[in-house]
């Protein structure tokens, strides 16, 4: 286990550094999209953890938006340190996730999806009415600083990209190790048979809450990153179609991947950027068809493709054996 941890950490570090170097040679408009992908990929990563338990949240925008607003509002008070803001957003959304998770852990399937949706729509409604928080027009977010270092114009986006890369890298390592841990392995079998888990002495409710808190924390971090990179946040981050978008990407990614969460986000963002530009009246149709085809031909998403190629026999994580 220890060597696994070390190998994964080293691998992630190498990948992060490689990407950071690569980022220096990429034009800025791609870099911005890359930063968005890292931020949204974190939300998707959290949803993947839930999808492993066969839970789909149509309200993940709630934590995403909460993280973004925590980051934005604190930055307006003059605190602009990216590390501190990200930590605060993570903490805040974890607390919200814990409180709501206590209630939500009793729900499954469509009811889980819809309860989450209702909660995120309440936040949306409250934000629209909060004129002091900018109402529907939203609030601006100050440019982040890094432990006292304030990059100027040209460097700002690149430095942020490296920061986001580090955060995403660390979160991915954590998520990967978590899925290989006892808790993580137990969680993956919630979807197969809850009663068997209870019989083994594990609390399904506790497992769900635990994963839910991780997912909401990741969504909160993603929200904080989005707030910092775009410099402006709006209540629409909590609107149900934002959450629907995340679910879309999660399905594309499949439950079992870490890198695929970011890969699927990149695919989604690319389609939207290119198609949105060239065919404004039919890009939704393209996305919809893409979703249908990927559900049809890649039941386990992008992650499923790679697994099948590498390991024909289902491994310990239980590569989504189609038993439903």
């Amino acid at each position, binding site marked *: 286990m220890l060597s696994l941890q070390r190998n994964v950490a080293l691998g992630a570090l190498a990948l992060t550094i490689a990407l950071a170097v690569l980022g220096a040679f990429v034009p800025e408009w791609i870099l911005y*999209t890359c930063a968005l992908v890292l931020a949204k990929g974190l939300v998707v990563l959290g949803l993947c953890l839930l999808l492993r338990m066969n839970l789909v949240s149509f309200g993940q925008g709630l934590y995403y938006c909460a993280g973004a607003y925590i980051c934005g509002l604190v930055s307006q008070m003059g605190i602009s340190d990216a590390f501190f803001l990200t930590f605060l957003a993570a903490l805040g959304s974890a607390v919200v996730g814990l409180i709501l998770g206590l209630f939500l852990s009793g729900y499954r399937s469509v009811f889980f999806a819809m309860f989450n949706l209702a909660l995120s729509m309440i936040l949306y409604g409250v934000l629209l009415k909060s004129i002091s928080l900018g109402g*529907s*027009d939203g609030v601006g977010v100050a440019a982040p600083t890094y432990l006292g270092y304030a990059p100027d114009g040209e460097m700002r986006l690149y430095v942020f990209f490296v920061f986001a890369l580090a955060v995403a890298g660390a979160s991915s390592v954590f998520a990967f190790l978590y899925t290989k841990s006892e808790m993580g392995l137990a969680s993956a079998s919630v979807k197969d048979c809850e009663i068997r888990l209870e019989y083994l002495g594990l609390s399904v409710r506790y497992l769900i809450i635990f994963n839910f808190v991780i997912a909401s924390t990741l969504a909160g971090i993603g929200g904080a990153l989005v707030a910092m990179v775009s410099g*402006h946040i709006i209540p629409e981050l909590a609107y149900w179609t934002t959450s629907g978008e995340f679910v879309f990407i999660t399905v594309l990614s499949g439950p079992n991947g870490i890198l695929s969460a970011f890969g699927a986000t990149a695919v989604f963002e690319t389609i*939207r*950027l290119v198609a949105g530009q060239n065919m*404004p009246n039919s890009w939704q149709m393209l996305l919809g068809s893409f979703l249908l085809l990927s559900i049809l031909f890649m039941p386990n998403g992008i992650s499923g493709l790679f697994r099948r190629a590498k390991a024909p026999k289902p491994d310990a994580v239980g590569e989504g054996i189609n038993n439903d």
Partner: protein
Amino acid sequence: MLRKITGQVRVGLRAVSLATIACVCAAPIANAEETFKLGLVNFLSGPAADAFGVPSMNGGELMVEALNAGEVPEPYAGMIGFGGMPIEIIKVDETGGAQVQIQRFRDLVQREEVDAIVGYDGSGDCLAVAPIADELKKVVVFSGCGTPRIFEENSYEYVFRAGSHSTMDNVALAHYVARKLPDAKTVAGFNQNYSWGQDSWRDFSLALKELRPDIETVGELFPETGAGQYGAQINVLMRLKPDVVHSSLWGGDLEAFLLQAGPRKLFDRTNVVFTMAEHVLPRLGDKVPEGLMTGGRGAVGALHPDTPLANWFYSAYEDKYDIPAVQGPFRFVQTILGLKTAVEIAMQENGGKKPTSEEIAAAFKFASFDTPSGPVEMAIGDGHQAIQGNAIGISKWNAQENRVELVDVEYFSAKCINPPNGVMSEEWIKEGFPGAECDN
């Protein structure tokens, strides 16, 4: 009154056209191979596409084609495109929220390498894009977005708005109501639950309180955007029986409200006054209730001034698209003409080269130019925010011509309904419009 304003418009027009002619003579035409690449952004999908986005883009395309062909009448006759450079356009959809807009904005600037961008109707989008424009040092000229926040909370170098914001629209309406409804004693608000609705109601009710302290507010409703069903809200208004109902609804919501409130006799019982209902009049036609007071956020559409430029645009648009031009296209071409003026002033200064963003931005500040909606002056927000006159009228069905007319129109001069430079609009209204120059 009308004649006086038209006279003023003429004088302003003459000044502007003289300036432009001077500019045409002085500036050597830029290198013929150079083009000016212009990004046009507006809603091509979603609820605002039908009300504003698509008509705006249509108007923009018409104007760009006419500019490239040199067909625009005085004061723009004789100068092709922007300072002799043909304009090349790239259209972008504004749907998707602030994050997507920033992404597309960067894409336009850094990949497509446009020379400037005009457009944006959503306030949230404008607020999000403004800092990025400054960061990338690229001129962006907003066409819509009602919020006064952009230049009141921040200052930007490369960001301009060549159209009105919610304050002047609603202050003009308050003036009109104060004058036309001397017996009104009570008012209620019926505005959408988002910033445009909230800001409009705030500006209108504050302004009305200043002008007519005797009018009491008896209720305020904020229906959800896109709700579509207003039966319950209309009954609340019927029960409250206010003398005046203020509404800044637009698009499909406004149309649904008009269709539902008519049979419920709301318009018989109370005067419903609209900030911007002008844009649905041509399409709803005889379904528009008689006697609605409405503006269109400027002297636009059927309220356009009687100038060669306005008449040309109004009829060219109707010829091409079979429907009269409403406020969206008027605001959008106003933005393009503002940019054209700035580019040409900048070329005059730099000896006729294609101007840089810095040069365009410097030339744009405090510029004034003529538009189909009358003269526009970049007078406030430190030269970044336009002021223009506004017109309010009352709807009347003309069966012979088969279209809705606006009658009893009053024009309000720009200086009457806008705060002076450097004054916050909300404070300005609360203090009783200090410095306002109203001529009636």
